[in-house]
Protein backbone atom coordinates (compact mmCIF):
# COMPACT_ATOMS: atom_id res chain seq x y z
CA UNK A 1 0.00 0.00 0.00
CA UNK A 2 1.69 3.20 -1.13
CA UNK A 3 1.02 6.83 -0.39
CA UNK A 4 0.01 9.67 -2.64
CA UNK A 5 -0.35 13.39 -2.74
CA UNK A 6 -3.88 14.44 -1.86
CA UNK A 7 -4.79 17.02 -4.45
CA UNK A 8 -8.23 18.55 -4.37
CA UNK A 9 -9.30 16.46 -7.37
CA UNK A 10 -8.05 13.26 -5.74
CA UNK A 11 -10.07 14.08 -2.64
CA UNK A 12 -13.20 14.65 -4.72
CA UNK A 13 -12.75 11.31 -6.49
CA UNK A 14 -12.20 9.47 -3.20
CA UNK A 15 -15.26 11.10 -1.72
CA UNK A 16 -17.31 9.99 -4.72
CA UNK A 17 -16.01 6.42 -4.39
CA UNK A 18 -16.63 6.34 -0.62
CA UNK A 19 -20.21 7.48 -1.01
CA UNK A 20 -21.21 3.87 -1.59
CA UNK A 21 -17.99 1.82 -1.20
CA UNK A 22 -19.52 -1.46 -2.42
CA UNK A 23 -20.82 0.01 -5.66
CA UNK A 24 -18.82 -0.28 -8.86
CA UNK A 25 -18.74 2.83 -11.00
CA UNK A 26 -17.31 3.66 -14.41
CA UNK A 27 -15.16 6.67 -15.22
CA UNK A 28 -17.83 9.01 -16.58
CA UNK A 29 -20.13 8.22 -13.67
CA UNK A 30 -17.34 9.06 -11.21
CA UNK A 31 -16.59 12.31 -13.04
CA UNK A 32 -20.20 13.32 -12.63
CA UNK A 33 -20.32 12.33 -8.96
CA UNK A 34 -17.07 14.12 -8.18
CA UNK A 35 -18.13 17.18 -10.17
CA UNK A 36 -15.06 16.95 -12.40
CA UNK A 37 -15.05 17.57 -16.15
CA UNK A 38 -15.43 14.35 -18.17
CA UNK A 39 -12.15 12.87 -19.36
CA UNK A 40 -9.92 14.30 -16.59
CA UNK A 41 -10.31 11.53 -14.07
CA UNK A 42 -8.16 8.76 -15.57
CA UNK A 43 -4.72 9.82 -14.25
CA UNK A 44 -6.23 10.07 -10.76
CA UNK A 45 -7.84 6.64 -11.03
CA UNK A 46 -4.59 5.17 -12.34
CA UNK A 47 -2.71 6.62 -9.37
CA UNK A 48 -5.29 5.38 -6.85
CA UNK A 49 -5.19 1.97 -8.46
CA UNK A 50 -1.41 1.87 -8.35
CA UNK A 51 -1.28 2.59 -4.61
CA UNK A 52 -3.93 -0.10 -4.07
CA UNK A 53 -6.76 2.05 -2.75
CA UNK A 54 -8.94 1.39 -5.75
CA UNK A 55 -9.43 -1.75 -7.82
CA UNK A 56 -10.90 -2.01 -11.30
CA UNK A 57 -12.50 -4.78 -13.32
CA UNK A 58 -14.14 -5.18 -16.71
CA UNK A 59 -17.89 -5.23 -16.82
CA UNK A 60 -19.68 -8.58 -16.78
CA UNK A 61 -20.30 -9.60 -20.44
CA UNK A 62 -23.94 -10.48 -19.65
CA UNK A 63 -24.58 -6.81 -18.80
CA UNK A 64 -22.94 -5.00 -21.69
CA UNK A 65 -23.80 -7.57 -24.35
CA UNK A 66 -27.43 -7.44 -23.24
CA UNK A 67 -27.38 -3.66 -23.56
CA UNK A 68 -25.54 -3.82 -26.92
CA UNK A 69 -22.62 -1.54 -25.98
CA UNK A 70 -18.87 -1.91 -25.42
CA UNK A 71 -17.77 -3.20 -22.00
CA UNK A 72 -16.97 -0.64 -19.35
CA UNK A 73 -14.14 -0.55 -16.85
CA UNK A 74 -15.59 -0.43 -13.36
CA UNK A 75 -13.86 1.05 -10.33
CA UNK A 76 -14.46 0.33 -6.67
CA UNK A 77 -12.69 1.26 -3.50
CA UNK A 78 -10.45 -1.68 -2.49
CA UNK A 79 -11.26 -3.60 0.66
CA UNK A 80 -8.37 -2.23 2.69
CA UNK A 81 -8.28 0.97 0.65
CA UNK A 82 -11.38 2.46 2.25
CA UNK A 83 -9.67 2.92 5.60
CA UNK A 84 -6.59 4.52 4.06
CA UNK A 85 -8.76 6.76 1.93
CA UNK A 86 -10.84 7.93 4.90
CA UNK A 87 -7.69 8.60 6.94
CA UNK A 88 -6.12 10.53 4.10
CA UNK A 89 -9.28 12.56 3.55
CA UNK A 90 -9.52 13.36 7.27
CA UNK A 91 -5.86 14.44 7.36
CA UNK A 92 -6.33 16.57 4.27
CA UNK A 93 -9.46 18.09 5.74
CA UNK A 94 -7.75 18.96 9.03
CA UNK A 95 -4.86 20.46 7.11
CA UNK A 96 -7.07 22.73 5.02
CA UNK A 97 -7.62 26.34 5.95
CA UNK A 98 -10.91 26.41 4.12
CA UNK A 99 -13.25 23.43 3.99
CA UNK A 100 -14.18 21.85 0.71
CA UNK A 101 -17.49 23.00 -0.67
CA UNK A 102 -20.31 21.05 0.89
CA UNK A 103 -18.18 19.60 3.69
CA UNK A 104 -19.10 22.12 6.36
CA UNK A 105 -22.36 23.90 7.08
CA UNK A 106 -22.58 27.21 5.27
CA UNK A 107 -22.82 30.39 7.37
CA UNK A 108 -26.43 31.11 8.26
CA UNK A 109 -26.36 34.68 7.06
CA UNK A 110 -24.87 33.64 3.74
CA UNK A 111 -21.60 35.50 4.43
CA UNK A 112 -19.58 36.38 1.37
CA UNK A 113 -22.51 37.72 -0.61
CA UNK A 114 -22.23 41.46 -0.64
Amino acid sequence: MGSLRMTLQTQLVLRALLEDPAKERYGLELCELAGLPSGTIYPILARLEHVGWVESTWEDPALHEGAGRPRRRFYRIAEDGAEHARDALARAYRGRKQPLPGWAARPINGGGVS
Partner: protein
Amino acid sequence: MRARRRLAPRPNKRRCALPSLEGLLAVVRMHHPHADTSLIQHAHDEAAVWHAGQTRRSGDPFLTHCLAVAAIVADLGMPPPVICAAVLHDIDDTPCPAGRVTEHFGQEIADLIAAVRAARIGAIPLTALHLHTARPPTLQPTREEAVLAIRLADRLHNMRTIAFVAPARRYLVARETRDVIAPLARAAGLADVSRELHDLSSAALQPASTPSAVTTRMLAMLTLLLPTRQRARWREEWHAELAALPTRRTRTRFTLRVLLSTPRLSWTLRRAAFRERRW
Protein backbone atom coordinates in the same frame (compact mmCIF):
# COMPACT_ATOMS: atom_id res chain seq x y z
CA MET B 1 -46.95 13.28 -53.69
CA ARG B 2 -47.99 16.31 -51.71
CA ALA B 3 -51.45 14.84 -51.23
CA ARG B 4 -49.95 11.55 -50.01
CA ARG B 5 -47.79 13.30 -47.48
CA ARG B 6 -50.81 15.07 -46.12
CA LEU B 7 -53.10 12.07 -46.06
CA ALA B 8 -50.70 9.32 -45.10
CA PRO B 9 -48.70 11.13 -42.41
CA ARG B 10 -45.41 9.90 -41.03
CA PRO B 11 -46.23 8.30 -37.70
CA ASN B 12 -42.99 9.41 -36.04
CA LYS B 13 -44.23 12.99 -36.17
CA ARG B 14 -46.46 12.63 -33.19
CA ARG B 15 -48.38 15.79 -33.95
CA CYS B 16 -49.94 14.15 -37.01
CA ALA B 17 -53.01 12.02 -36.58
CA LEU B 18 -52.56 8.29 -37.06
CA PRO B 19 -53.68 6.85 -40.42
CA SER B 20 -57.42 6.29 -40.41
CA LEU B 21 -60.10 4.83 -42.65
CA GLU B 22 -61.43 8.32 -43.35
CA GLY B 23 -58.03 9.47 -44.55
CA LEU B 24 -57.69 6.43 -46.78
CA LEU B 25 -61.18 6.89 -48.30
CA ALA B 26 -60.42 10.56 -48.95
CA VAL B 27 -57.37 9.58 -51.05
CA VAL B 28 -59.39 6.93 -52.88
CA ARG B 29 -62.13 9.46 -53.72
CA MET B 30 -59.54 11.93 -54.94
CA HIS B 31 -58.33 9.42 -57.56
CA HIS B 32 -61.59 7.54 -58.19
CA PRO B 33 -64.49 9.94 -57.45
CA HIS B 34 -67.14 7.40 -58.41
CA ALA B 35 -65.56 4.29 -56.99
CA ASP B 36 -67.52 1.98 -54.72
CA THR B 37 -65.59 2.12 -51.43
CA SER B 38 -67.66 -0.48 -49.59
CA LEU B 39 -65.12 -3.19 -50.38
CA ILE B 40 -62.33 -1.09 -48.86
CA GLN B 41 -64.44 -0.46 -45.75
CA HIS B 42 -65.04 -4.18 -45.52
CA ALA B 43 -61.32 -4.85 -45.82
CA HIS B 44 -60.68 -2.31 -43.06
CA ASP B 45 -63.22 -3.98 -40.76
CA GLU B 46 -61.71 -7.39 -41.47
CA ALA B 47 -58.16 -6.16 -40.81
CA ALA B 48 -59.34 -4.43 -37.61
CA VAL B 49 -60.73 -7.72 -36.31
CA TRP B 50 -57.72 -9.91 -37.11
CA HIS B 51 -54.99 -7.41 -36.24
CA ALA B 52 -56.73 -6.43 -32.99
CA GLY B 53 -54.26 -6.32 -30.11
CA GLN B 54 -51.20 -6.34 -32.40
CA THR B 55 -48.96 -3.32 -32.19
CA ARG B 56 -46.10 -1.91 -34.22
CA ARG B 57 -42.71 -1.39 -32.61
CA SER B 58 -43.71 2.26 -32.29
CA GLY B 59 -46.56 1.19 -29.99
CA ASP B 60 -49.21 2.20 -32.53
CA PRO B 61 -51.96 -0.32 -33.35
CA PHE B 62 -50.86 -2.60 -36.22
CA LEU B 63 -53.92 -1.54 -38.20
CA THR B 64 -52.35 1.90 -38.70
CA HIS B 65 -49.65 0.24 -40.84
CA CYS B 66 -52.27 -1.48 -43.04
CA LEU B 67 -54.08 1.81 -43.57
CA ALA B 68 -50.91 3.81 -44.22
CA VAL B 69 -49.73 1.29 -46.83
CA ALA B 70 -53.19 1.31 -48.46
CA ALA B 71 -53.19 5.12 -48.55
CA ILE B 72 -49.83 5.13 -50.35
CA VAL B 73 -51.10 2.51 -52.80
CA ALA B 74 -54.28 4.54 -53.36
CA ASP B 75 -52.21 7.62 -54.00
CA LEU B 76 -50.31 5.73 -56.71
CA GLY B 77 -53.67 5.56 -58.52
CA MET B 78 -54.33 1.89 -57.88
CA PRO B 79 -57.97 0.72 -58.12
CA PRO B 80 -60.04 -0.45 -55.08
CA PRO B 81 -59.20 -4.20 -55.36
CA VAL B 82 -55.47 -3.44 -55.10
CA ILE B 83 -56.15 -1.07 -52.19
CA CYS B 84 -58.07 -3.88 -50.47
CA ALA B 85 -55.12 -6.21 -50.96
CA ALA B 86 -52.88 -3.51 -49.45
CA VAL B 87 -55.13 -3.23 -46.38
CA LEU B 88 -55.00 -7.02 -45.99
CA HIS B 89 -51.36 -7.58 -47.03
CA ASP B 90 -50.28 -8.86 -43.59
CA ILE B 91 -53.46 -10.78 -42.80
CA ASP B 92 -51.58 -14.10 -43.08
CA ASP B 93 -49.63 -13.14 -39.93
CA THR B 94 -52.87 -13.27 -37.94
CA PRO B 95 -55.12 -16.16 -36.86
CA CYS B 96 -57.39 -15.40 -39.84
CA PRO B 97 -58.39 -18.82 -41.28
CA ALA B 98 -57.14 -19.69 -44.75
CA GLY B 99 -59.88 -19.25 -47.32
CA ARG B 100 -61.68 -16.49 -45.44
CA VAL B 101 -60.19 -13.75 -47.63
CA THR B 102 -61.20 -15.63 -50.77
CA GLU B 103 -64.67 -16.12 -49.36
CA HIS B 104 -65.16 -12.44 -48.50
CA PHE B 105 -63.11 -10.65 -51.14
CA GLY B 106 -62.84 -13.05 -54.07
CA GLN B 107 -60.07 -15.08 -55.67
CA GLU B 108 -58.46 -12.10 -57.39
CA ILE B 109 -57.65 -10.24 -54.15
CA ALA B 110 -56.60 -13.42 -52.34
CA ASP B 111 -54.21 -14.28 -55.18
CA LEU B 112 -52.81 -10.77 -55.17
CA ILE B 113 -52.11 -10.94 -51.41
CA ALA B 114 -50.40 -14.31 -51.89
CA ALA B 115 -48.34 -12.87 -54.77
CA VAL B 116 -47.30 -9.86 -52.65
CA ARG B 117 -46.05 -12.17 -49.90
CA ALA B 118 -44.29 -14.55 -52.30
CA ALA B 119 -42.72 -11.98 -54.63
CA ARG B 120 -38.98 -11.45 -54.58
CA ILE B 121 -38.91 -7.73 -55.09
CA GLY B 122 -35.64 -7.73 -57.02
CA ALA B 123 -36.98 -10.34 -59.47
CA ILE B 124 -39.91 -8.29 -60.75
CA PRO B 125 -39.30 -7.41 -64.42
CA LEU B 126 -39.28 -3.65 -64.83
CA THR B 127 -39.87 -3.50 -68.57
CA ALA B 128 -43.65 -3.79 -68.36
CA LEU B 129 -44.15 -1.33 -65.48
CA HIS B 130 -45.80 2.06 -65.88
CA LEU B 131 -46.24 3.13 -62.29
CA HIS B 132 -46.25 6.88 -62.69
CA THR B 133 -48.67 8.85 -60.56
CA ALA B 134 -50.53 10.40 -63.52
CA ARG B 135 -51.97 7.07 -64.69
CA PRO B 136 -55.53 7.29 -66.08
CA PRO B 137 -58.13 5.84 -63.67
CA THR B 138 -59.44 3.49 -66.32
CA LEU B 139 -56.07 1.79 -66.86
CA GLN B 140 -56.03 -1.47 -64.93
CA PRO B 141 -52.64 -2.33 -63.46
CA THR B 142 -51.05 -5.66 -64.29
CA ARG B 143 -50.43 -8.18 -61.51
CA GLU B 144 -46.72 -7.20 -61.42
CA GLU B 145 -47.55 -3.51 -61.11
CA ALA B 146 -50.00 -4.16 -58.27
CA VAL B 147 -47.52 -6.37 -56.42
CA LEU B 148 -44.72 -3.84 -56.80
CA ALA B 149 -46.96 -0.95 -55.69
CA ILE B 150 -47.94 -2.76 -52.48
CA ARG B 151 -44.39 -3.91 -51.72
CA LEU B 152 -42.98 -0.41 -52.29
CA ALA B 153 -45.71 1.16 -50.15
CA ASP B 154 -45.01 -1.41 -47.41
CA ARG B 155 -41.30 -0.59 -47.47
CA LEU B 156 -41.95 3.16 -47.57
CA HIS B 157 -44.10 3.04 -44.45
CA ASN B 158 -41.62 0.72 -42.72
CA MET B 159 -38.84 3.19 -43.50
CA ARG B 160 -40.90 6.08 -42.16
CA THR B 161 -41.13 4.20 -38.85
CA ILE B 162 -37.62 2.67 -38.92
CA ALA B 163 -36.56 4.68 -35.84
CA PHE B 164 -38.37 2.17 -33.63
CA VAL B 165 -36.51 -0.86 -35.00
CA ALA B 166 -33.43 -2.37 -33.28
CA PRO B 167 -30.13 -0.98 -34.68
CA ALA B 168 -28.84 -4.18 -36.32
CA ARG B 169 -32.07 -4.82 -38.23
CA ARG B 170 -32.46 -1.12 -38.99
CA TYR B 171 -29.06 -1.14 -40.67
CA LEU B 172 -29.88 -4.18 -42.84
CA VAL B 173 -33.28 -2.84 -43.91
CA ALA B 174 -31.91 0.63 -44.63
CA ARG B 175 -29.03 -0.76 -46.68
CA GLU B 176 -31.32 -2.91 -48.81
CA THR B 177 -33.68 0.04 -49.25
CA ARG B 178 -30.93 2.37 -50.38
CA ASP B 179 -29.14 -0.11 -52.65
CA VAL B 180 -32.03 -2.13 -54.12
CA ILE B 181 -35.50 -0.76 -53.41
CA ALA B 182 -35.01 2.97 -54.06
CA PRO B 183 -33.35 2.37 -57.48
CA LEU B 184 -36.16 -0.09 -58.28
CA ALA B 185 -38.82 2.53 -57.47
CA ARG B 186 -37.02 5.01 -59.71
CA ALA B 187 -36.84 2.48 -62.54
CA ALA B 188 -40.57 1.83 -62.16
CA GLY B 189 -41.26 5.52 -62.70
CA LEU B 190 -41.95 6.48 -59.08
CA ALA B 191 -39.41 9.26 -58.63
CA ASP B 192 -41.02 10.71 -55.49
CA VAL B 193 -41.24 7.35 -53.74
CA SER B 194 -37.66 6.58 -54.76
CA ARG B 195 -36.40 9.92 -53.42
CA GLU B 196 -38.16 9.50 -50.10
CA LEU B 197 -36.89 5.91 -49.74
CA HIS B 198 -33.38 7.08 -50.52
CA ASP B 199 -33.52 9.97 -48.05
CA LEU B 200 -34.95 7.86 -45.23
CA SER B 201 -32.49 5.01 -45.73
CA SER B 202 -29.49 7.31 -46.04
CA ALA B 203 -30.48 9.05 -42.80
CA ALA B 204 -30.85 5.68 -41.04
CA LEU B 205 -27.41 4.56 -42.25
CA GLN B 206 -25.66 7.65 -40.92
CA PRO B 207 -27.06 8.17 -37.44
CA ALA B 208 -25.77 11.32 -35.79
CA SER B 209 -25.53 9.75 -32.35
CA THR B 210 -22.68 7.26 -32.83
CA PRO B 211 -19.09 8.29 -32.16
CA SER B 212 -17.45 9.54 -35.34
CA ALA B 213 -14.39 7.84 -36.76
CA VAL B 214 -12.34 10.96 -35.95
CA THR B 215 -12.93 10.91 -32.18
CA THR B 216 -12.48 7.13 -32.00
CA ARG B 217 -9.23 7.28 -33.96
CA MET B 218 -8.00 10.25 -31.94
CA LEU B 219 -8.46 8.32 -28.67
CA ALA B 220 -6.77 5.27 -30.18
CA MET B 221 -3.80 7.46 -31.18
CA LEU B 222 -3.60 8.98 -27.70
CA THR B 223 -3.01 5.54 -26.23
CA LEU B 224 0.29 5.47 -28.15
CA LEU B 225 1.59 7.83 -25.46
CA LEU B 226 0.95 5.15 -22.82
CA PRO B 227 3.14 2.17 -21.92
CA THR B 228 2.67 -0.57 -24.53
CA ARG B 229 1.13 -3.08 -22.18
CA GLN B 230 -1.51 -0.63 -21.00
CA ARG B 231 -2.70 0.65 -24.37
CA ALA B 232 -5.40 -1.92 -25.11
CA ARG B 233 -7.05 -1.44 -21.74
CA TRP B 234 -7.32 2.34 -21.99
CA ARG B 235 -8.37 2.27 -25.61
CA GLU B 236 -11.23 -0.05 -24.73
CA GLU B 237 -12.16 1.91 -21.62
CA TRP B 238 -12.29 5.24 -23.44
CA HIS B 239 -14.17 3.69 -26.33
CA ALA B 240 -16.88 2.54 -23.90
CA GLU B 241 -17.03 5.98 -22.26
CA LEU B 242 -17.32 7.65 -25.66
CA ALA B 243 -20.23 5.38 -26.59
CA ALA B 244 -22.07 6.49 -23.44
CA LEU B 245 -21.93 10.19 -24.37
CA PRO B 246 -25.06 11.38 -26.14
CA THR B 247 -23.99 14.23 -28.41
CA ARG B 248 -21.11 15.09 -30.68
CA ARG B 249 -20.30 18.12 -28.55
CA THR B 250 -19.91 16.09 -25.33
CA ARG B 251 -17.82 13.49 -27.17
CA THR B 252 -15.51 16.15 -28.59
CA ARG B 253 -15.14 17.73 -25.16
CA PHE B 254 -14.39 14.35 -23.63
CA THR B 255 -11.75 13.61 -26.27
CA LEU B 256 -10.05 16.96 -25.75
CA ARG B 257 -9.92 16.50 -21.98
CA VAL B 258 -8.51 13.02 -22.37
CA LEU B 259 -5.95 14.56 -24.73
CA LEU B 260 -4.95 17.08 -22.08
CA SER B 261 -4.75 14.52 -19.28
CA THR B 262 -2.99 11.75 -21.21
CA PRO B 263 0.58 13.00 -20.54
CA ARG B 264 -0.14 12.86 -16.81
CA LEU B 265 -1.69 9.41 -17.14
CA SER B 266 1.32 8.26 -19.14
CA TRP B 267 3.68 9.59 -16.49
CA THR B 268 1.69 7.93 -13.69
CA LEU B 269 1.66 4.58 -15.45
CA ARG B 270 5.34 4.71 -16.43
CA ARG B 271 6.41 5.70 -12.93
CA ALA B 272 4.34 2.85 -11.49
CA ALA B 273 5.90 0.37 -13.92
CA PHE B 274 9.38 1.70 -13.11
CA ARG B 275 8.83 1.27 -9.36
CA GLU B 276 7.53 -2.24 -9.83
CA ARG B 277 10.61 -3.15 -11.83
CA ARG B 278 12.92 -1.69 -9.17
CA TRP B 279 11.28 -3.75 -6.42
